[in-house]
């Protein structure tokens, strides 16, 4: 597989591994968040509704209690008795005991004349016969006003109750301190922005509002009038240019007053907003985990694939190589043998020509001269070429014949220095130093000594050639080391500081007839024969090289056991 294929596989796995877990992950987060927000909204609205209902209950009972206070007076105290100032003031004190909200108390006769008063102002003597509140009171028996300023210029509202005296009506009127009522209504506090206030049917504020808007004013942002009925009504409404509010409203006092509880939506749903952070954080960390896992796993998978593929290619190469080597061996052996016969003929012919030539010179048919020398030279060349051919065929035959050697236990620490000694002279001539490192303990391998020698001599000669190729007469260093491998094999390494091998040549190095030496210098069989020999001895041969730095051949042979 080439690099592109890996890239596309990597991309495919990566995308799949990110997308597949991401979809359910995001869905879980999305659905979870959706239901969570729904539940938060529902519970917020429900709790707001409950607050409004409770609050309405409280305000209603406050109003009806105040009304009941007055009704009790009307029912228990006669008009004549109540008009006496002492009695009135004692009643007022009693009233104040039950609720400090009352700020004064006034009595009116049937004509609306203010007959008695207890309070901070002097109000007696005025006639209220035509005042709407008076009319209403007479008509319905009870009256609770909107909040108004009146001539006192203090916001307040009144509660008036009508009583009977000998068929005539009289009226008791109490002023309720708006400040107290205000506090009562406003005491609702929800979150940071939650507030409660009262509006009358005209939309005028009956209490202060915490977020701005004073008593008796119309709030700057009107809200739609909720439908009639006793139900608590909720809505989400956005005043122009302002925050979005969550409203809960309920009618009071026979739809004259509207209790409004409102809270900024953001505040009401702050739990939701707060949940954003953990949700986002979870998504981020989860996403990062998925991406990290995808990258790590993809990397591991692709690396594994690459490794497997490389091994596969290597294995098939080895298989092909091994079978090809065997085939080639057989074929070339036959071929070499066939070549030897014509070579024998040529050789015989050459000898005959030489003999004839000598004869002709002796008999005077041929005189020695320039042409004679040239013919002689030419014939010498034929001889050289015959020898060359015969050398090649011999190498081929050596390679082809995989005869069984006689395996013996070979002590490497003895044999290797001996072999090095054989080439020492040649090395010294080219000022090449051979450095040998041997193990402290004797290592014995099972091998055919003469063939092992052949292999090592070949490697040493190659190493010297490589150094000569690079440095010429300047020389270099060959490093030979023998070591005990952990895999039951002994390793002999021959490392040179020579010219190195081109990567494209490195893979062909053990192939028969492959050579980089000039024509006539090498048969290209040396290393392939070595390879064959080592394989046959149950060993392994490997090469690594770096152009310009040097080459290292490693021969591994099975460690032999001394038979007892």
């Amino acid at each position, binding site marked *: 597989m080439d690099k592109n294929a890996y890239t596309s596989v990597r991309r495919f796995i990566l995308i799949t591994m990110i997308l597949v877990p991401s979809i359910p992950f995001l869905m879980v987060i999305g659905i979870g968040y959706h239901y969570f927000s729904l539940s938060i909204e529902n519970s917020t609205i429900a709790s707001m509704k409950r607050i409004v209902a409770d609050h309405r209950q409280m305000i209603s009972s406050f109003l009806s209690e105040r009304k009941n206070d007055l009704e009790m007076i009307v029912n228990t105290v006669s008009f004549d008795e109540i008009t006496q100032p002492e009695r009135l003031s004692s009643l007022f004190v009693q009233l104040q005991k039950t609720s400090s909200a009352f700020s004064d108390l006034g009595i009116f006769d049937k004509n609306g004349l203010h007959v008695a008063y207890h309070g901070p102002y002097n109000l007696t003597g005025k006639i209220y016969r035509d005042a709407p509140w008076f009319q209403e009171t007479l008509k319905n028996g009870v009256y609770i006003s909107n909040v108004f300023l009146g001539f006192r210029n203090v916001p307040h509202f009144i509660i008036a109750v009508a009583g009977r005296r000998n068929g005539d009506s009289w009226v008791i009127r109490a002023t309720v301190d708006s400040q107290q009522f205000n506090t009562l209504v406003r005491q609702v506090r929800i979150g940071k922005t939650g507030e409660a206030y009262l509006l009358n049917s005209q939309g005028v504020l009956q209490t202060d509002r915490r977020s701005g808007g004073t008593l008796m004013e119309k709030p700057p942002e009107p809200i739609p009038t909720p439908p009639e009925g006793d139900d608590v009504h909720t809505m989400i409404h956005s005043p122009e240019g302002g925050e979005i509010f969550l409203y809960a409203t309920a009618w009071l006092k026979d739809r004259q007053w509207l209790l409004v509880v409102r809270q900024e939506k953001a505040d009401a749903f702050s739990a939701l907003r707060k949940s954003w952070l953990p949700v986002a954080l979870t998504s981020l960390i989860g996403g990062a985990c998925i991406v990290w896992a995808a990258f790590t796993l993809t990397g591991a998978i692709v690396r594994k694939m690459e490794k497997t593929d490389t091994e596969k290619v290597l294995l098939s190469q080895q298989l092909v190589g091994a079978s090809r080597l065997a085939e080639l061996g057989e074929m070339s*052996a*036959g071929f*070499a*043998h066939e070549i*030897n*016969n014509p*070579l*024998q*003929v*040529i*050789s*015989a*012919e050459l*000898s*005959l020509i030489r*003999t*004839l030539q000598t*004869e002709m010179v002796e008999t005077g048919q041929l005189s020695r001269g320039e042409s004679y020398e040239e013919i002689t030279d030419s014939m010498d060349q034929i001889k050289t070429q*015959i020898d060359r*051919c*015969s050398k090649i*065929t*011999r190498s081929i*035959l050596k390679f*082809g*014949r995989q005869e069984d050697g006689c395996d013996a236990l070979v002590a490497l620490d003895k044999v290797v220095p001996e072999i090095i000694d054989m080439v020492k002279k040649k090395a010294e001539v080219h000022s090449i130093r051979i450095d040998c490192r041997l193990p402290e303990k004797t290592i014995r391998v099972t091998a055919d000594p003469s063939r092992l020698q052949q292999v090592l001599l070949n490697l040493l000669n190659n190493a010297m050639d490589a150094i000569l190729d690079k440095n010429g007469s300047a020389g270099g260093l060959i490093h030979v080391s023998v070591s005990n491998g952990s895999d039951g094999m002994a390793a002999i390494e021959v490392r040179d500081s020579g010219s190195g091998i081109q990567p494209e040549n490195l893979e062909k190095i053990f192939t028969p007839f492959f050579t980089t030496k000039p024509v006539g210098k090498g048969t290209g069989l040396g290393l392939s024969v070595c390879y064959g020999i080592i394989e046959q001895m149950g060993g392994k041969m490997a090469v690594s090289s770096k152009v310009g730095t040097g080459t290292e051949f490693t021969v591994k042979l099975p460690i032999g056991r001394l038979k007892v």
Partner: protein
Amino acid sequence: MDNLKLMIVDDEERFLATTEKLLRKKNVDVVTASSGAEALEKLRAQAVHVVILDVKMPGMDGVATLKEIKRQFPLVEVIMLTGHATVESAVEGLQTGAVDYLMKPADPDLILQKATDAYHRRMGVEEKIRVARMRWLMKSPREMLKNA
């Protein structure tokens, strides 16, 4: 080498012809045969000291021919000529009674040299036989008379 009579057995006709010519020039008496059967036939007709025998031949191969020669003419010295792949057969030949072997392509001078060596060996053997026989004859004149 006046007396050396050499036989060359090979299926390569040209090789036979050239080598014969060449050796004749060197005053060697040469007989050629292109097959094992022909060689045996010619051996019956004339006395040959040394045979150069190609191992790989069609029909009767070198080793079989060698065995037959050694059986019929035990005193004839045989040198095996082999293509390298058949060193095993050369070894077999040596075990069967060949005196030496040569590898193709072999220089004719080398062939002649080995043949000469073999000839001398053969002469040595014959000499010994002669001496032995002489001694035996000399040992007892009575016996000599009896045999005569």
